């Protein structure tokens, strides 16, 4: 089932979401007739590949999946004059808690993504592309498959596209429910038909990725920006955002949690977080006030309400000690216990750890177990210190950044809301050796873990 179509908010700048409100937004006819559909693709396949890469580099387009790495620079890492085929993979394994932007783009505007892939493929000299979509997003998969079929019929995909002599084949690849497959090397493992376990870098995918060949992995929103950049130029794209090449363009921000009007909004990079939450999302729910938010998905360190006056761009958020991530803002109001939030955040990562690296496999589960113990009012200050130590000992010590994604928000909550944890500590007079209460909300493995080890 698709999200109800919404009219753009007056403060929005819809570029990626242009045409979202149209009834037949997913059809190739509508896209071609009203939005210059496939004009950029035709242009790109007839350009020198390096010129396309330079243009994207100049535009300042950054990876909108979370890392914020400049897309053109990434493309430039593909070895020149290599004999191996190059693969272009779209990362549509949207799984970061709080994020639902890619789903909107795929379900409603699939052709913008497909065109973006054709343009990007011509820049990196790829003849074969895959869209790795989360398995749960069946509607997005159906819409994309239909759209790809339409593009093949028109001759925009396949052999000799637009008569340029270039080829590009595109296939939708369904995932099967594993958060870690959103990590690019995990995604590549999964695409190859293996367990979605991340691989050590280097070699980076651009040198040796899918099937042992150079591979570029980009997020949906990143790729969908490319056609407009080719049509309208780098300066136009920089002008859309905060005015510099480091804050170029727009992103679709997903807002959820304790706000009056949750939803997704396309805004210039660098837009004020406070303005978004109060002016667009209508502020807190009746009778409540904001307490904190995760500004970039559940793996970003939280910001307190007093820190909301910050621009939603990579550099400003980094300066504020957090990160832009996938542009997913999860808002918490004053009715929420931060101990509960820390526990649930750790619980998610404990569940999603792939288990390859011991620090992450054990660290995420111990963090969760200790926080549950505190949440159940059975914990002590020492337990909290142990949780912090578990976090500090997994961060940066694993193949991928899942352990960091768990440690960063948990550490930030413990630092910024330490007084709340104190209220949960077991009182000295109540201390007796008891089995911790195992709540029904834990997965079987964790229950066993708690029974066995605590």
């Amino acid at each position, binding site marked *: *089932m*698709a*999200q*109800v179509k919404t009219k753009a908010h007056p403060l929005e700048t819809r570029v990626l979401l242009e045409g979202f409100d149209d009834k037949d937004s*997913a059809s190739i006819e509508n896209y071609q007739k009203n939005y210059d559909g496939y004009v950029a693709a035709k242009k790109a396949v007839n350009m020198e590949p390096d010129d396309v890469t330079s243009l994207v580099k100049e535009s300042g387009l950054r990876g909108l999946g979370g890392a914020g790495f400049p897309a053109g620079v990434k493309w430039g890492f593909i070895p020149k004059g290599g004999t191996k085929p190059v693969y272009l993979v779209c990362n549509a394994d949207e*799984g970061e*808690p*709080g*994020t*639902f932007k*890619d*789903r909107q783009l795929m*379900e409603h505007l699939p052709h913008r993504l497909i065109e973006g892939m054709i343009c990007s493929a011509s820049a990196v000299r790829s003849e*074969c592309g895959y869209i790795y979509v*989360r*398995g*749960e*997003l*069946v*509607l997005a998969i*159906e819409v994309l498959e239909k759209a790809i079929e339409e593009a093949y019929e028109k001759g925009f995909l396949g052999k000799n596209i637009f008569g340029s002599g270039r080829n590009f*084949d595109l*296939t939708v*690849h*369904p*995932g*099967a*429910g*594993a958060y870690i497959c959103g990590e690019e090397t995990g995604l590549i493992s*999964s695409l*190859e*038909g*293996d*367990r*979605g*376990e991340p691989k050590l870098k280097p070699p980076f995918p651009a040198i040796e990725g899918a*099937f042992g060949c150079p591979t570029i992995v980009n997020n949906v929103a990143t790729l969908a920006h490319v056609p407009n950049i080719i049509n309208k130029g780098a300066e136009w794209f920089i002008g859309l955002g905060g005015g510099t090449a480091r804050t170029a363009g727009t992103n679709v921000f*997903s*807002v*959820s*949690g*304790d706000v009056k009007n*949750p*939803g*997704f909004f396309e805004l210039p990079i660098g837009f004020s977080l406070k303005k978004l939450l109060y002016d667009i999302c209508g502020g807190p729910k009746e009778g409540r006030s904001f307490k904190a938010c995760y500004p970039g998905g*559940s793996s970003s360190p939280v910001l307190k309400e007093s820190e909301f006056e910050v621009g939603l761009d990579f550099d400003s958020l980094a300066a504020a000690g957090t990160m832009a991530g996938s542009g*997913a803002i*999860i808002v*918490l109001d004053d009715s*929420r216990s931060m101990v509960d*939030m820390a526990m*649930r*955040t750790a619980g*998610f990562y404990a569940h*999603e750890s*792939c288990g390859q690296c011991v620090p992450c496999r054990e660290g995420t589960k111990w963090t969760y177990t200790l926080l549950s113990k505190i949440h159940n009012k059975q914990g002590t200050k020492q337990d909290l210190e142990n949780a912090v130590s578990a976090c500090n000992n997994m961060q940066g010590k694993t193949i991928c950044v899942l352990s960091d994604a768990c440690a960063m928000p948990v550490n930030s909550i413990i630092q910024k809301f330490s007084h709340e944890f104190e209220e949960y500590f077991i009182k000295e007079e109540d201390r007796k050796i008891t089995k911790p209460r195992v709540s*029904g*909300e834990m*997965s*079987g493995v964790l229950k066993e873990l708690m029974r066995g080890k605590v």
Partner: protein
Amino acid sequence: MAYQFPEDIEKKFQWLITRYPKKDAILLPLLHLVQKDVGYLSSEAIVEVARKMELTPARIREVASFYTMFRLNKKGQYVLGVCQTLSCYLNGSEELITKLKNILNIKEGQTSEDGLFTIERVECLASCGTAPVMQVNDWEYHENLTVEKIEKIISLLKEHKAADISYEKRLSSGGVA
């Protein structure tokens, strides 16, 4: 009884092989097709997938067990996956799970006696703006849920009405229940 690919899966299997440089890569899409056909990845189905893929059944299990969407055991006809991650939790997913357990009189992970329902907790379904969310059988999303809507969905499912809603209808409708 030995499992054999029905004609449509066989056709899709042959097509998939042409789309990838290595045959191994089609495993995930193929397992999805087989699971949809059988309802879960039975031992017989895994043996047949292994034969077709020229891999061992152990290898198929090794890969399939990594992914939460693949079921290695039989479950209810309707698997109700309630999202428990932050945004859904903030909007009351715990109440939904309690309600489901009460209506169906089963615990999480269990299947109701009539074989119709299994309750599961799942992680983020990428639908946080319309939380809380439940998916039926890994594909049908029900969003902006309330306890009342849950009751209605269950009664519709009991009459086999709410499942398998067509693509066009899902795309145009704001909500099923």
